């Protein structure tokens, strides 16, 4: 067992460890998965917000700014389009590198190469559906590479079933009504998402409304729903209608 993943004594003493519920300033694990619908910009928006939150403390000067790799496979581009520079967060615009991979295999290759690169701050992947190439082995491979080189991977799965994966944190995101802006209450406000953390190593599952504030990522408890009180949904063991069984692996 890898002892480095266990909490240390100093960490146990802090508030976050005593209260293991996820918080926006919790450390970003090196491999997270975000399940999102393809017809919304939710997945990547939240991924970039997570990345921004994680990078906030790390990079002090512009010299230390490292690039961000955004990998998309062809189907993800077809469903959700390409990144648009003018709409990206201010501090990521000039350092985005976009990879348009034709197949999921190429996308996986690009993500792994990106994780190996010490000059990248974060790798954001966007893969549509449940391609055969992205099985548990591939997922484990990405996790190991990310943990070896310390580059976080945020893998956005568009229109995908939550199949087996070794991601350390798995989110299911949909959009949520935004808070009305101050000066024009009829206009859409800053992005807000309904986020469900359904599998995480260090935190119990839970649901939040995430708001992408200018300076930080804010989280508030989601209004009580039926699923909150039910047993936590371990997505990788539940066999959905389209998911492959363990025997198929």
């Amino acid at each position: 067992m890898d002892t480095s993943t266990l909490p240390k004594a100093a960490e146990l003493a802090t508030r976050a460890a005593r209260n293991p519920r996820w918080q926006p300033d919790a450390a970003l694990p090196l491999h997270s998965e975000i399940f999102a619908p393809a017809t919304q910009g939710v997945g990547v928006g939240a991924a970039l917000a997570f990345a921004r939150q994680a990078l906030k403390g790390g990079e002090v000067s512009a010299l230390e700014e490292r690039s961000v790799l955004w990998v998309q496979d062809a189907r993800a581009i077809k469903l959700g389009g390409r990144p648009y520079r003018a709409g990206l967060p201010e501090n990521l615009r000039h350092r985005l590198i976009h990879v348009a991979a034709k197949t999921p295999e190429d996308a996986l290759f690009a993500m792994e190469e990106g994780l190996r690169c010490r000059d990248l701050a974060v790798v954001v992947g966007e893969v549509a559906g449940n391609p055969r190439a992205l099985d548990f082995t591939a997922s484990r491979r990405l996790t190991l590479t990310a943990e070896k080189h310390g580059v976080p991977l945020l893998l956005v799965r568009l229109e995908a079933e939550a199949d087996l994966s070794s991601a350390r944190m798995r989110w299911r995101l949909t959009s949520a009504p935004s808070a009305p802006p101050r000066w024009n209450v009829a206009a859409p406000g800053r992005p807000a998402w309904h986020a469900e953390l359904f599998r995480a190593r260090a935190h119990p599952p839970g649901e939040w409304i995430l708001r992408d504030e200018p300076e930080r990522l804010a989280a508030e408890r989601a209004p009580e729903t039926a699923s909150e009180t039910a047993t936590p949904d371990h997505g990788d063991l539940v066999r959905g209608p389209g998911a492959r069984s363990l025997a198929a692996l």
Partner: protein
Amino acid sequence: MAIWCADLALDRWRHSEGCQRGEGPDAAPLALITETAHGPRIDAANPAARAAGAARGMMLADARTLCPAIEVRPSDPAGDLAFLERLALWAMRWGPWSAMDAPDGVLVDVTAVAHLFGGERRLLADVDARCTARGLATRAAIAPTAGAAWALAHFAGRVGERGAILSPDEDMQARLADLPVAALRLDNDVLLVLKRLGLKRLGDLAGIEEGRDRTGHNDIRGRDAIQRRFRNRKSPAANPLVRMDQLLGRVPEPLLPVVPVTAPMVQRRLMEPIRHRQLLDTVVSDLAQDMARTLEAKGEGARRLQLGLWRVDGQVLVRELEMAAATRDPDHMVRLFAERLDDIDAGFGIEMLRLRAAWSQPLGLDQSDLEAAAEQHGTSLAACMDRLTTRLGRGAVQRPVPRASHIPERAQGWQPPLEPEPAEQHQLAFHTRPLKLLDRPERISVLYAAPEGYPRRFSWRGEVCEVARVEGPERIAPEWWREKGSTRLRDYYRVEDEQGRRYWIYRNGLATDGRGGMPDWYLQGLFA
């Protein structure tokens, strides 16, 4: 400078016999012969044989009738050529580069070199002295062109003379006018043609070229006539006009210089003779390391390796290896040699080992631990981009850059990831823009209260969105300097539906703009 070895074959034979000119076996008539289809033919004859009537090119049977006592030895043209090659390398002592002039000459470039030897005359004296010391009868000449030097070396004066110098100040044509046309390095059949035409000296040929015949009358057609006669002869050796021009320096004459190639060699002399296999392996491993370094410096890899082991009693054991591909991996060499050293009898001990790469091929330098370093410390951005570009293609790895345009899809360009962003006077500051832009705007059907009012409800990809909040319109006019006049303006709206889905949609035109009927609606971008 041209050096002509007049008697190269015989000089070599004398050297192998170890006799001086005209002494020992050389005193009797002797000829070097080759076997031809018509019987043995004389390639070279020594002075005694020549005095008796034998000549080069004569059949041996004819020579025997003239001089029954003539001795024969087989000639060795291949050996002569190899010797000439070594001679050409040796002749680089007089100039920066030299070229072989088969079958019996060497050309050396002595441009701006003569003063190092104390002048051209002394240079020629030095050549003469050193060649004589090697037992070669030579004649050298210095001239501004290789052709002129060759002509002077072969045809000016007698063999054994100091040689001839043609300085650039002299009138080259006048100096060479008296030489026979054979001085042009022409083929025998061309020489025959010229002889039949009555052109025996270079002066005759030059006169015709300039349109002067021997009586001094002008005849403009002279050069044309020769040109027509030899119009099909492209090779310089078959065309006297080309040779003449080369001789006088009017056209360049490329020469092929000889380049010395040395086989990489490393050796170890041992203080104590070794008798045990273990020590031998150590020394072989050291040699392999040295060899790898030597090969690496030359950018080569070995195909064939020879390991020589000198024993104390003077016996030499040689083991040879041949590799399938050029390599300079020392471990590989040691592993291969280890199998060949089992049957070595060290006797009283081995005192010297020598490893020689008899055959080597170019092998690019490579970073052997690139993968290992990347495993440990991660790759650099450039290396990462290289790998991605190599596998996915140049167009797949790109960076978005702003462009000066208000039209959303045109306001962004793509460029290779590591190129600097293009300099711009001013970046357009946009109102809120979506995170992602569809490659093509997709048509949606919209329900609205008034044609120019807010959209109420729209359906996209089979889903119905009830618009809950909307901001707009942001009107973007077409770029008239780029597009047709019938292009319609766009009214962009940011919309959010009841579930919080945020889109960027636009109405293409106005109902009243007179550029078509009712405007269509499109969805272009997705907000986060």
